[in-house]
């Protein structure tokens, strides 16, 4: 599918997209360093979550479709040598600027949660 076919978008702002679901967060995180095809995302999400999040193909592509609609990621040709080859997907996904902002906002949100929890649990311990 050509990226131009995505004519109907709902541009997400960082605050309107939060909180992210766990699979969505891991997918965005997986795409943070470089573009990846679907299979690579599946494997990376599994690795990032220590095997706790194993996505089915339908869940993965459902999430990718929503992220494309929100313009948090983009779909590009999978043309890099190490990613191409027989039996590999011909499309890859890359994090957009908006996606990076949402990912950072979610990370900050979680950091604040963890800080609050540490503070309170630390107080109770002492």
């Amino acid at each position, binding site marked *: 599918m050509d990226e131009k*076919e995505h004519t109907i978008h709902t541009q997400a702002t960082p605050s309107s997209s939060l909180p992210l679901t766990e699979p969505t967060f891991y997918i965005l995180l997986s795409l943070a360093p470089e573009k990846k095809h*679907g*299979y690579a995302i599946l494997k990376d999400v599994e690795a990032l979550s220590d095997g706790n999040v*194993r996505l089915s*193909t339908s869940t993965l592509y*459902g999430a990718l479709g929503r992220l494309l609609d929100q313009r948090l990621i983009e779909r590009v040709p999978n043309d890099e040598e190490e990613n191409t080859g027989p*039996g*590999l*997907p011909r499309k890859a996904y890359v994090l957009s600027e908006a996606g990076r902002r949402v990912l950072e906002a979610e990370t900050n949100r979680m950091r604040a949660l963890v800080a609050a929890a540490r503070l309170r649990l630390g107080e109770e311990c002492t």
Partner: protein
Amino acid sequence: MKRCAQILVRIYARLLSLYPRQYRADYGEELQTVFSLVVNEAAQQGRFSVIRLGWRELRDLPGAVIREYLREGRKRKMETSTITPAGDGRSSWGETLAGLWPFLLGPVSVIVEYLTMPAWFQYSETPKYLSIVFVLSMLVGLGVGWAKGWPRWSYPYLGFAMVVGGLAIGGTVSSMVFTVGPEWPVLPQVLIAVGAFGLIVGILTLIARAWRPLHSLYRGIRQDWTRLSFGLFTGMLVLFGGGGIDHDEDPIFTLNVFMPSLIVLVGALVYLRSTTKVQRILALLASLTLAVAVRVVGGKIFYGTYGAVVGVIVLIPALLELLPRPAKSLQAG
């Protein structure tokens, strides 16, 4: 194990046909490729990995398919709302036929009944299979109308459900209040029926406003109030005895009984093919007046009273269109 993986890949390819066509065109090949890679990897790890993978895919598939249909529906609705100016535009012939179907069913049922009934059997109830066709048509129309975001043609289906609901509640209340018999006071009964009907329309509007899955219905009515009038216009079918069936008449199939239903049908046709709201209001008003007039001239004076009551109820929403609108509500539409 390799053969097992191949079978799974083949089953998966078949299951992909459950997704919407556009989704399959966009992602089908990619889904299949990724699944093949995943299943081959699981096959190398052993039987349990393959079973776990198969279970995970099967468990997630129904929800994913439903979500994709909903997403596609939302996209189509947004595309339509950006292409079609608020409340305007002529219905296509396919949509027109779908919108006319409730109005067609009555006359068709009379013709079928007339042609299939033995000559000596002049008084009959509508055949059961026609009732089943009618109810099924209404349910299908409501379902498709909902799925497509309540286009103009779907309002007669909704209107018919409201009319039947209003009559059921009004009839129940009337039978609780008044004694059974031919001497029932007419005016209070009419008022109860109108009250029950108004209650249903009000409740539906509030639900449509508050409940997200019905927001498109609420938006559609706000954009073009004549749609609600068009829905209520199906009340004329009930007024004229289910589209031309009048068991007080002998014989049941006369032009006098049949004409008002045909006029209502033509009114609905003109409504669906019109391009402006004024044309739509005129189509409803003219057909309402003419249909009732034919019946009154034909000797049934009481249709004048009922017709006036039904006509006012039908036309009230459409007349709201003639009031000046605040700029905000126009933009919201």
